């Protein structure tokens, strides 16, 4: 029995612990103990379903990424609201094929999620070989710019957080 089999997803365990505190709507000794127990038990129970968990290398960068996404969401919301309320004739929708540098499944899906969460873009599909992402944009005057923005703002930090060893 290795540590790994007893503690297969450290980050997941942490996440679960936090979620439990949120669920209990407060932190107490009882909730911490229970959260810890569950945070240990559930990953053991379910790790077979998640054979290839991601490794987080730079948690701080990740947090920064998180805040950036949140603020982007806020801004994009207003922009898109304008687009929606304006005449839809002027909109320039587009399908954009976005070439992926990320390789790990989890980070790719994280990127796709991010793209979808920021209004104005929706990641429609991931190619079979996981090399490109199909994005639909509500109003895309310039595809290249969109790709660049995503690369810079989202893919790069994710690369740092999850896949720095490889690059």
């Amino acid at each position, binding site marked *: 029995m290795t540590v790994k089999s007893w503690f297969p997803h450290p980050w997941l365990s942490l996440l679960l612990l936090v979620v439990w505190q*949120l669920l209990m709507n407060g932190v107490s000794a009882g909730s911490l103990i229970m959260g810890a127990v569950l945070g240990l038990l559930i990953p053991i129970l379910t790790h077979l379903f998640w054979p290839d968990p991601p490794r987080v290398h730079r948690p701080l960068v990740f947090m920064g990424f998180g805040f950036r996404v949140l603020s982007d969401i806020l801004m994009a919301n207003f922009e898109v609201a304008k687009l*929606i309320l304006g005449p839809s004739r002027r909109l320039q929708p587009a399908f954009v094929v976005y070439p992926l540098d990320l390789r790990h499944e989890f980070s790719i899906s994280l990127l796709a999620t991010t793209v*979808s969460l920021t*209004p104005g873009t*929706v990641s*429609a599909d991931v190619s079979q070989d996981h090399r490109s992402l199909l994005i639909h944009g509500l109003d895309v005057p310039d*595809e290249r710019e969109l790709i660049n923005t995503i690369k810079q703002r989202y893919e790069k930090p994710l690369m740092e957080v999850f896949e720095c060893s490889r690059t």
Partner: protein
Amino acid sequence: MESAIEWLVAALLLLGSLFALIGSFGLYKLPDFYMRLHGPTKATTLGVGSLVLASVLYFSAEGEVGLHELLITLFLFMTAPTSASMLAKAAMQVHVQRVERTKGQPWEQ
């Protein structure tokens, strides 16, 4: 209840509801499926997000400090993109109509 918080809650509420409404309006108004797909993201993100925040503030002010409403947003952030992607894939499979000026092609699977 302190009025500052009250005002803040009210603002958040209105903001959230407004965005939810705009999202649904987009869903109703936009001309093709792929464009309509963008509407609900407003509702999920800012719409529900602000409402949840308002709720957290509101109940905290009432004395029930707690952040558990945030979990709603957490889960929505996880699930909404997935369903959007699934729907887009489905739409591509069934070849729904899209406006002609759309640049690029959805790829054939």
